[in-house]
């Protein structure tokens, strides 16, 4: 059972956003758990061999961020021990609060990583490439070509290395790789010429340059300026900065839509958006709900600071329940597979 890459993208966005926005360890732990669970449930069985050593990296990040903050930030009331103040930067009291703060920052990064890793593992490469917006059709094609030719290039690399070895070449220095890299590059470029010839012969695009229409360009730059302005406004403390940023983003989206109309192009067997995909998207969007100014949620519990003195983090049950929306993919897969088992 697989889901649409676009649904996964929404899932990733919401999960990542939540991981960034909350600094409460309870929520973070919940998110981390959900993302690992979803990956466990939805990862294809034949997932590509090489995986990021997630837990090892996480541990390293946590240790590093804890120590770093403890050594650099000398605030908080519970002093564990002190270093001589004459030492630059690290000198001063080392506090429990600073350590906890560092740990939380690390935990946030780890949770964010966890969502991305799940996305990487679950969504196949070609579907990821298929996420390129239509306005970027050319770049999407470049990406697909690159993905197609990577295994080919690997193969060629080995062949050339062998060929040079049998004429007595020894790979003892960096310069010695020249006889491999140069033929690899030239063969690649020659192949590019042949490939482009084939593309032209199959009716690929125009050979002339496509000019970006001025209106789309104007929209894009206006959008960018607005987004920038919004962000600055936010930095100065104006809440309306969010609104300005959103308008800016919308302008860019509009420009993209305008541009995508220029490319006359259809898609072979596009993946159909199914009910399950809607469920996943809805589940993810549900998680955003507590962010809106609606009553009934303790929004302040999202932020947690160990300073000035460490206390217990608050936990709002309803927000926690809402977070479970991100577990929707795992839920669907569980129900689906139990259904398959029952019927067989």
């Amino acid at each position: 059972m697989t889901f649409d890459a676009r649904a996964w993208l929404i899932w990733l966005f919401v999960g990542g956003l939540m991981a960034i926005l909350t600094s409460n360890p309870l929520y973070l732990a919940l998110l981390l758990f959900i993302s690992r669970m979803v990956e466990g449930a939805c990862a294809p069985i034949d997932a590509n061999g090489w995986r990021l050593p997630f837990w090892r990296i996480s541990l390293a990040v946590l240790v590093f961020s804890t120590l770093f903050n403890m050594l650099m930030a000398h605030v908080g009331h519970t002093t564990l021990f002190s270093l001589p103040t004459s030492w630059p930067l690290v000198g001063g009291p080392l506090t429990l609060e600073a350590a906890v703060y560092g740990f939380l920052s690390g935990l946030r990064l780890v949770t964010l990583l966890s969502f991305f890793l799940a996305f990487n593992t679950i969504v196949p490469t070609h579907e990821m490439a298929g996420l390129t917006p239509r306005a970027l059709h050319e770049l999407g094609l470049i990406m697909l070509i690159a993905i197609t030719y990577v295994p080919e290039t690997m193969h060629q690399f080995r062949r050339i290395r062998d060929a040079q070895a049998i004429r007595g070449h020894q790979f003892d220095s960096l310069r010695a790789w020249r006889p491999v890299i140069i033929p690899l590059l030239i063969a690649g470029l020659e192949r590019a010429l042949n490939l482009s010839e084939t593309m032209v012969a199959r009716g690929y695009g125009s050979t002339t340059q496509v000019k970006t229409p001025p209106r789309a360009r104007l929209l894009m730059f206006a959008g960018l300026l607005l987004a920038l302005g919004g962000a600055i406004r936010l930095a100065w403390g104006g809440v309306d900065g969010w609104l300005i940023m959103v308008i800016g983003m919308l302008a860019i989206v509009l420009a993209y839509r305008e541009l995508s109309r220029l490319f006359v192009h259809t898609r072979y067997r596009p993946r159909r958006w199914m009910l399950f995909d809607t469920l996943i998207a809805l589940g993810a969007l549900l998680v955003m709900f507590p962010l809106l100014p609606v009553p009934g949620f303790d929004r302040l519990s999202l932020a947690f600071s160990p300073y000035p003195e460490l206390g217990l983090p608050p936990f709002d049950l309803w927000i926690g329940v809402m977070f479970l929306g991100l577990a929707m993919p795992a839920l669907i897969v569980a129900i689906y597979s139990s259904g398959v088992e029952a019927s067989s």
Partner: protein
Amino acid sequence: MIAVRNFTFSYPQAREPALKDIDWVIPDGQFVLVAGPSGSGKSTLLRSLNGLIPHFSGGSLSGNITVDDVDTVLAGPRLLSRIVGFVAQDPEAQAVLDQVEGEIAFALENAAISPTEMRVRVEETLDLLGLTPLRSRSLSTLSGGERQRLAIAAALALRPHILVLDEPTSQLDPQSAEDVLRALVRLNEDLGLTIVLAEHRLERIARYADRLTWLEDGRIVADGPVRTVLAQINAGPPIVQLGRALGWQPLPLTVKEGKSFAEDIPVPQTLEVETSAVPGPPLLEVNGLRFAYNGQQTLRDIDLSIGAGEAVALVGRNGAGKSTLLKCIVGLLRPQSGDIQVSGQSVRNRPVADICRDVGYLPQNPDDLLFAETVIDELRVTLQNHHLPESSADLDSLLRRLKLTGVDASYPRDLSVGQRQRVALGAVTVTRPRLLLLDEPTRGLDAATKASLVAVWRDWLAEGAAILLVTHDVELVAMIADRTIMLSGGEIIAAGTTRDVLTSSPHFAPQIARLFPNSGWITPADVLKHIQP
């Protein structure tokens, strides 16, 4: 209908036109073979039929070409892609996307065909080329022949009624080539597709083609029914060469057609056993070689020995273990058991570079070797690798032998295929190894280039070198090899003199052996020597 009128074309910055005054008309439904030596303008002519020339290459031209009354120069390749499908030589450089169906759909997506229509067309194209079982495979898992059929399918997706193919089988082994050619014949006969095919394996395809156009030096030298043209030119498969030499009329194109003529020629009752020169001391000895890759036995109990002055051919299907054996000999792969001795010295525990001072190994793709700025540098690099002194007299004599004297300062990549093959040969033999390993040395070469390589090897053999040759080309084996070893599934299934091995297996037998069974003849020269002593 294709009409080429008075067409002359020069590439940018070229001194001489690549095509000169071509007048050529092809009616619908014809199967046309375009042949000629390499560099004669075949590729250029084919590429001008769909507007790639001049739109892709640049250059200047005069005259005109119309396809279905559309002027190719005015229309350009994008418009013409719906009338003319095009397939190029290299199966590895024609795939845009990574998946079979997607690759076929690429052209349709660009033409903005509606998704429902697209489904239908992809299905029908998959069926036409027999690719349905492969439909969801990734391209990196396909063989060369499958890729080439996919390239044809992709070219046909827009439903052109003309298909132009530029040496589509030159990089393939005979079996895959056969599959591709058979698919073309079916397309021509069942669908009435016009096919324009540049090809040098005339023996497989000559009888199906309606017409042969022979190009030399940018001009059409001969054009007409295959039989007529083959009678006029000095080329063609062995049976045609023999038929031409003996004045058989009408010229036979297949073994079947040749049988009636062959009956008139008396076959000697006792085989004349040529006493070939007794081979010198063994330069290569392999005993009880075993090699397993990923737990799979790819070589089992291989024993062979090659003496000085001897040429041995290694034949067998793809995946029989031929290249693996060569790699074991030079130390790129280390066998699990057994012993290999080069010039009486075991290769075990010797580094690759050390072994290769005594062994010249020409890999399948000569371009993998070439990276230097000039031809002469390419030779020097090998000497430097081995820390050997260089003498310009030696280098000059090697270049002269390889007929590369005029181009010693050129950039190797700019040379023709045949010249590049010779540069690569020079690069691996500049250390004067006495044992030569050649892996598919004639793949993609035309008859003339092949003959010039064979001449070089014969010289070396005469001087006491030994050659181990891996090839699919039985006619080449018949020309040069004293002995032949047949591999299958990693085991030697037949070994003996080339004559015995080749004539005993109908699959590998050369045309002449099939024409005169039990005669011991394998080349046209054998027959001619017998009747015209």
